[in-house]
Every structure is written in C-alpha cells, then in structure tokens.
C-alpha cells in the first residue's frame, strides 16, 4: 500500500472544518442583512474566542486526560499581553489586521511561557492534585494582573508592580502623551478595539488545525497513550514529561491567542473576568461537547454562550435555568438506559474516557 487510507477521523476532521466555514458564511450573511440582533452580533467575537478556548482545553482535558481548572489564567495572560502589544505597536504597525495578528502571536507566546512555567513543576502531580494546582494558578494570575501597572510613551514600555495598593498609574513617570494600558484593579481601559469576526474565524480554524493535526501525529499518539495508560506508555519508551508538557504548553498558547483576541474586543477589561468561573465555564463546554471530541466542544461553546442571551426573556431566572439545564444534561447523558438508546444512532462508538 502506497497511500494511507482515508480514515474515519479524516472524514470527521473535514466535516468539522466545513461546519466552521459554513457557520462563518451564514453568520456573515445574517449580519450584513441585519437579521442578527445587536446583542448577538456583539457576541460573535467572544463566541469565536470561547470556541477556540474550548478546543484548546480539550487538548489538555480530553486528549491529555488531565483536569485543568485554570485555563482562564492562560487566556488572561494572552489577553493582557496582547493588549499591551497592540497598544504599544500602534505607531510601529499601522495596519490593523497585521497588528492584531502580531498581538495574538505575542499573546500566544506569553501564555506558552506561562504554561511552561506552570507545567514544569505541576505536571508531576496527578488527577485532583493537578486540578487544584491549576485552579491555584488561575487565581494567582488574576491577583498578579490586578497589581500590574503598564503604560507606554515615547520612551517605550513602563511597568510597575503595585504590591501595597498605594501606587497609581502616575507613578510610572511617563512623559506627556503617554498612554496608560493596564491600571491595576481597574484593568485595561481605553483599549482600541481591533478584534473582528473574521479574525475570530481564522483563530478557530487555526486552533482546530493545530489540535487536530497534533492529535493525529506521533506526538498526539504518545499523548493519548499516556492518558490511557501511563505505565504502559513509559514501557514503550515514551517520555511522559516531554509529551505532557507539549500538550499543556500548546493548549496554553492557543488559549493565549484566544485571550488576545478577546481582550482586543473590549475597550475595558478587568482581570477578574478571567476568574475560576470562566475556567469552569470552558470546562463545561468541553465536558458537554465530549472529551476529545473537538466539534462537540465547538457546538457546546457556541450554544452555551448564546443560551444565556436567548434566555433573556427569563431575565432574573436565566442563570437558574442555565444551572438546571446543566444538571439535567449531565444526568440524562450519563443515564445508562438513555446512553444505550442514543448509541444506536451514533456513527461510531463514543470514546468516553474517564479523565480523572
């Protein structure tokens, strides 16, 4: 046999890409002829970011099989470094799309570095211990950004760390015409919003491309092998730390890129946006969409971001309804009787694998 056969997964991957493209085209048509409500139009970029966050977290939780409760931390790192990059490069790179791309790459790089710093010690831990440490990490990032003061003037970047809470942006000693980018607990304000839906679409496609191709390469096989059985993986010569790091850092970098786009979509953004609840929200996308199932993550992310919008009719009750929906979905999808019923309609068997 000269050529690799077309595998089941190749078809699924192709359909996933196709689905995202169709969704993008449909949304653009709806947007241009005004069918889409204003609030929903405003949600387009965040939805893309959440989709990409869900896919990247699925790499850690579904494919690597380690529970992470601090994914929003990497988004935060990406968001604020992306904002700083975009704001300070305003004069150097006047072309907006290019500046956005550079900001997202810088966001990804910063988050990758954060991922490597966290991953080095943490990936030795197992299961729930790893979960608590990632949770702790997310909280640490939030607190650190809350203490951060960043400004930019003709002399370059100025940074200060507001340990005691007594410093203000004036302590940076910037020249006339300098701009304050991050103001401690107030977060980033006055950001020029340069994020676009097209950029969001490209982000989702790139994230999918990276995760799917990584999954179906030798690295992906090694990562899934150590998820399935770490001892056996070691016994066939797989360097566990190396591949865990690879998955973890890639996942962090993709989250950073998504964070940068997210940050550049709002003129004002606080670090508290990326708290434990956001990490959990993304985890919910991943679990509802199915572990290791990327198109599932995409659909869950889109549906659950739109759902609270659609529930506006319920006003005060909408988060309550959301909670009930969440519990009921978990109870029904894990009900043995219903599971066998639904599995009859599936193309191939689900690979529900316990991650923790």
């Amino acid at each position: 046999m000269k050529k690799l056969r077309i595998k089941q997964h190749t078809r699924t991957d192709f359909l996933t890409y196709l689905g995202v493209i169709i969704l993008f085209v449909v949304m653009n048509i709806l947007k241009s002829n005004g069918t889409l409500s204003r609030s929903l139009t405003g949600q387009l970029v965040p939805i893309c970011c959440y989709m990409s966050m869900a896919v990247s977290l699925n790499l850690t939780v579904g494919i690597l099989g380690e529970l992470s409760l601090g994914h929003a931390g990497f988004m935060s790192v990406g968001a604020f470094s992306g904002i700083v990059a975009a704001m300070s490069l305003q004069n150097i790179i006047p072309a907006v799309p290019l500046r956005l791309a550079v900001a997202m790459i810088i966001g990804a790089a910063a988050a990758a570095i954060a991922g490597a710093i966290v991953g080095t010690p943490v990936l030795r831990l197992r299961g729930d211990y790893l979960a608590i440490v990632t949770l702790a990490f997310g909280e640490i990032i939030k607190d650190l950004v809350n203490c951060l003061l960043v400004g930019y003037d003709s002399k370059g970047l100025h940074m200060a760390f507001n340990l005691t809470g007594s410093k203000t942006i004036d302590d940076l000693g910037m020249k006339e015409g300098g701009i304050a980018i991050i103001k401690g607990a107030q977060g980033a304000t006055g950001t020029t919003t340069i994020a676009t839906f097209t950029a969001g679409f490209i982000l989702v496609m790139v994230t999918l491309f990276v995760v799917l191709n990584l999954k179906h390469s030798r690295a992906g096989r090694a990562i899934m092998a150590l998820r399935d059985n770490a001892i056996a993986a070691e016994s066939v010569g797989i360097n566990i730390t190396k591949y865990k790091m690879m998955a973890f850092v890639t996942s962090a970098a993709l989250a950073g890129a998504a964070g940068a786009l997210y940050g550049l979509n709002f003129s004002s953004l606080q670090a508290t946006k990326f708290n434990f609840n956001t990490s959990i929200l993304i985890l919910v996308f991943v679990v509802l969409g199915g572990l290791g199932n990327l198109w599932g993550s995409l659909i869950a992310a889109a549906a659950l971001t739109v759902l609270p919008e659609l529930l506006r009719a319920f006003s005060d009750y909408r988060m309550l309804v959301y909670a009930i929906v969440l519990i009921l979905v978990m109870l029904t999808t894990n009900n043995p009787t219903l599971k066998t019923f639904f599995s009859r309609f599936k193309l191939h068997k689900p690979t529900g694998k316990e991650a923790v």
Partner: protein
Amino acid sequence: MFPKLVPMPSPNLLTERDADKTPILECINLGINFGGLAAVENFNMAIGRTEITGLIGPNGAGKTTVFNLLTKVYQPTKGTILLDGNDTHNMTTAQVNRAGIARTFQNIRLFNDLTVEENVTVAMNAHMHYNMWSGIFRLPGFWKEERVAHERALELLSIFNMADLADTKAGSLPYGAQRRLEIVRALATNPSLLLLDEPAAGMNPSETAELMENIRKIRDTFQIAILLIEHDMNLVMNICEGIAVLNFGRIIAKGTPEDIQSNPAVIEAYLGKQKEA
C-alpha cells in the same frame, strides 16, 4: 528508519546467532526491599542474546518484581543490571526501553482508546524523528515516516494474524487478542530483550500451543532474547532453553528444563516438604 523484518530463519542463520557468546542481560546481586522486607534478594542471572529463558516460581515469589526491577518501574536497592554490557543504573523506564528492554504486563495494559494499529505505531515513537511542527503542518517528514510506521505495524501485526484488526479499538478486542497485541506492541519498540509476563494466562490449550509457536518464531525472526514468566509448565518446559526458579525472592534453582524437573528444592517449593517416612 527501522531495520526491516528479518526473514524466517534458515539453518545457516542459527550458527550466526550463536556467534556472540556475551550475554545480553546480566543481573548481579540484584535486590529490592519494601519497607524492610526483601522482595527480591541476590538475584543473579545472565541471558544469552537469542536465548528463551523461563522465570518460574509459586505465587508471590517475586517474579513480576524482577520484571519491574529490570524495567525500572522500581529502582533496585541493591545490585547491578547490565544490558548489553551497559549499566542501566539511573535510567528511567522509558530510557531502559529505548536501550532495548520491552515488556508485556500480567494485567493487560493496552491503550484502550487507541486503535490496534496506533497501539503498535505509538511504540515506534522513539524510532521516529519528525518533530511537532512537521506533524502539525504535515511536512514531508511526517508523511514519509508515518507511511513506514504504518507498513511496519501491519507487518508486525501479521505475525499474530491481526493485520485485519488494525482499525479496531484495542479496548474492544477479545482477551486473547489483547494479550497478543501487547506482545506486538513490545516488539515494535525494537527490543533486544523481550520480557513476557504470563503470556499464556487465560488461554486455552490450543491457543497456548499457537502462542508457543509464535514465541519461537519471534525469537528466530528477530534474533532477540526472551525472558518469560509463566505458570503453564508445559509451555515453559517446551520452549525455554534455561529456567530459573524463584521462591521467597531468591533463586532456588537454575538450569535446563530437565535439571529443574528433577530438582528436589523445586519440587519442595511447589508441593511442600514431604513428610519423613
């Protein structure tokens, strides 16, 4: 990338095989303590390059512990392991495997959510060289190595007539096929010493007979040494050229199958001491 499969042995290969008399594996005074209890003690053994050796003994004698020591799942507290003359001290499980020891597990440990083929190709990881970026961007290196790995996997699977199961999930294979897949996976790492932990467990006599043939075939084809733990005495006595008997963590007898069968210490270990008449 990998050496091609060696063809089936011809009589003149056998002489070639016996040419190198140095052992592939040497254990010198190997031992490990668990909380003061010596699970394995003074374990001395040498295995020839193409020898099939059996490690037998009653339950709890420490046989699997020996495997765990050889593969560094446990770090030995005493003694030395020489693999092809090199000390494996300070090596990790993964490094020992890359140095040439592959194993199977008593309680099957497959990658259940991967396909049969992926279970085999993942074991070739150390012999593949394209990096993460070639994988993500599907550069030529990816296609070239993946094709070779795919062909090699099918070739290895066909030893046990499993090539047509390549796309099945490993977790959904029947028990016997899972045991065989573990052996194929171990072989895919290109070992010079293969450790089999109770390969015939749970197999019926005809399956065992087939397995016996296959173990011989693997040794002859790949020219490697095999050390196996087995309770099926028929299998052990038939295919092993040397046997070591372990009891309470110590070797109580070593020798050819004929020596072992008539050794009083072995009989005592298995059947208990006979009352003085």
